[in-house]
């Protein structure tokens, strides 16, 4: 059985199409990274999978239960760390956890035992009787993770769990995720952090403008990123795009304003070629920047790779 099987999910908010066609399969036991730039529809997809908002179309089977027709059974099996932290700030950490225990039908002793263990693991045990109001962002996020894990779910959803967090909290959360996965928990991790996905995930799905554009192992993704470098250059005279595109390594040359954007897998060779080129033409380089490959370029690259 797959942990998640989603087919052709769609969702619009008024005129905005947040998700236009998303199909995802997540296997049991894997860490699946759901990657995409801001506004791509990651959170909307996750909320549909969690049964928080109903899709306009499509189906989602979570742990074998249809999220529309058997929401309670599906929800019983997974835990959620949503994009926006949502513990009750007027309750203590402990009260929040006990509430979760009751909502998931755990008996009190078990809930208390698990809560203590999780709070200890996440470094919150000493502050357990303090109202969540007084917590830092990182502490809140760790508590939310504890709340999501209390009922020992087989599947865990996390929506950008480390975004904007301190290093200590980030490290704690990521290493806990790794341990959980080793013990068999399936993890659906939404992120726009390529590096995080790369370190953690067995497979990643990439969403762009509401559509899945690629599903791959992160190694392949990484290779794709490393293939694309951008060099931004401008000259004191007009040069032809065809000449630039013919330089060693250059895969494309595009003009924006007075600057040229050259993409290349080998920036060193291309810069050398550029220098030779300008010497031969008697023109001078006015500006030259090498741009780190952006996530967006990697996405583009992957999409193009898939299409060819």
């Amino acid at each position, binding site marked *: 059985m797959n942990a998640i099987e989603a087919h052709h999910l769609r969702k619009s908010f008024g005129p905005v199409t947040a998700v236009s066609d998303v199909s995802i399969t997540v296997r049991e036991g894997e860490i699946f990274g759901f990657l995409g730039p801001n506004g791509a529809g990651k959170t909307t997809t996750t909320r549909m999978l969690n049964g928080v908002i109903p899709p306009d179309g499509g189906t989602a089977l979570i742990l074998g239960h249809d999220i529309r027709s058997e929401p*309670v*059974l599906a929800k019983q099996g997974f835990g959620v760390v*949503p994009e926006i932290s949502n513990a009750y700030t007027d309750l203590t950490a402990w009260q929040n956890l006990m509430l979760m225990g009751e909502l998931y039908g755990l008996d009190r002793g078990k809930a208390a035992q698990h809560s203590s263990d999780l709070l200890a693991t996440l470094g919150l045990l000493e502050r357990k009787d303090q109202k969540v109001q007084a917590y830092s962002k990182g502490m809140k996020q760790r508590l939310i993770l504890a709340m999501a894990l209390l009922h020992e779910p087989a599947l865990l959803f996390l929506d950008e769990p480390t975004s904007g967090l301190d290093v200590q909290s980030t490290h704690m959360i990521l290493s806990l995720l790794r341990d959980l996965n080793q013990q068999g928990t399936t993890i659906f991790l939404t992120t726009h952090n390529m590096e995080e996905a790369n370190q953690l995930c067995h497979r990643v799905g990439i969403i762009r403008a509401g559509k899945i554009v690629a599903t791959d192992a992160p190694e392949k993704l990484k290779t794709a990123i490393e293939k694309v470098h951008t060099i931004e250059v401008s000259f004191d005279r007009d040069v032809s795009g065809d000449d630039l595109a013919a330089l060693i390594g250059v895969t494309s040359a595009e003009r924006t304003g007075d600057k040229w954007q050259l993409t290349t897998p080998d920036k060193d060779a291309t810069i050398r070629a550029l220098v030779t080129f300008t010497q031969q033409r008697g023109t001078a380089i006015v500006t030259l920047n090498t741009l780190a490959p952006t996530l967006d370029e990697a996405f583009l690259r992957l999409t193009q790779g898939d299409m060819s």
Partner: protein
Amino acid sequence: MNPAGLPEQVKRAWAIAKKDIRLYYAKNSVLIFGILMPFFLFLAFFAGSSQLPLTFLLPGLVGVTLLFTATALSPAIYAWEGRHGTLERLVSCPITIEAMVFGDMIASILFGIGITLITVFIALALGLPLLHGIIMIVSILLAACCFSAIGMLLAVPPTSEPSTPMTLSLLIKFPLIFISGIFVPLDQLPSWGLVLSACSPLTYFTDLVRYSFTGEHFFPVLADILILAVITLVFTAGTMYLHKRTMPKRM
């Protein structure tokens, strides 16, 4: 354990109720709308209509108190929780919307009953007899369910501004007081007034309370109870159905 089964969902509804009790009983707006308002309203009328006997007015006080207290927190819960994002957490938990609504109703019902019992004791302390204790208990329970369902019904339009449903609920509660035989005996109403009264669940409750205290009543007691029960069932089913439909719009 079947998480989706009724017994389990009722237990989870109780968890929601306990959370509401912890979080919302002591909220200022709940205390103001639920307790101070009816108290001062009643004082004003009490001072102004001294020709009516206490045996008539005190059952009215019990009626007004239950109406206000049992609807004090239910209208605003989802607005508060929507605003803080906690509603999204509840919706991602294995609890049905019906059970959530039921849990919120339980918290409202207990708040209503608790404060209303105080006014019952005040009435007894002021010398009213209690002729039908069982009827009193049954009718307070029933009416508390009915009024809390009304409160939840007022919370149906999605908003994250808690004062909107609270104001809406005031706009409905004040007219109810004037058509429900609280300050004016039903037999002194013109026939069109009586028709209006018959539409208000508060009328039947107040009638039952008067009967419990003094044995006097306007409608047959069984009719009061039956009508109140039917209204309660219809409103409860209605509010659960409507909340199920509107909940996604709050997300």
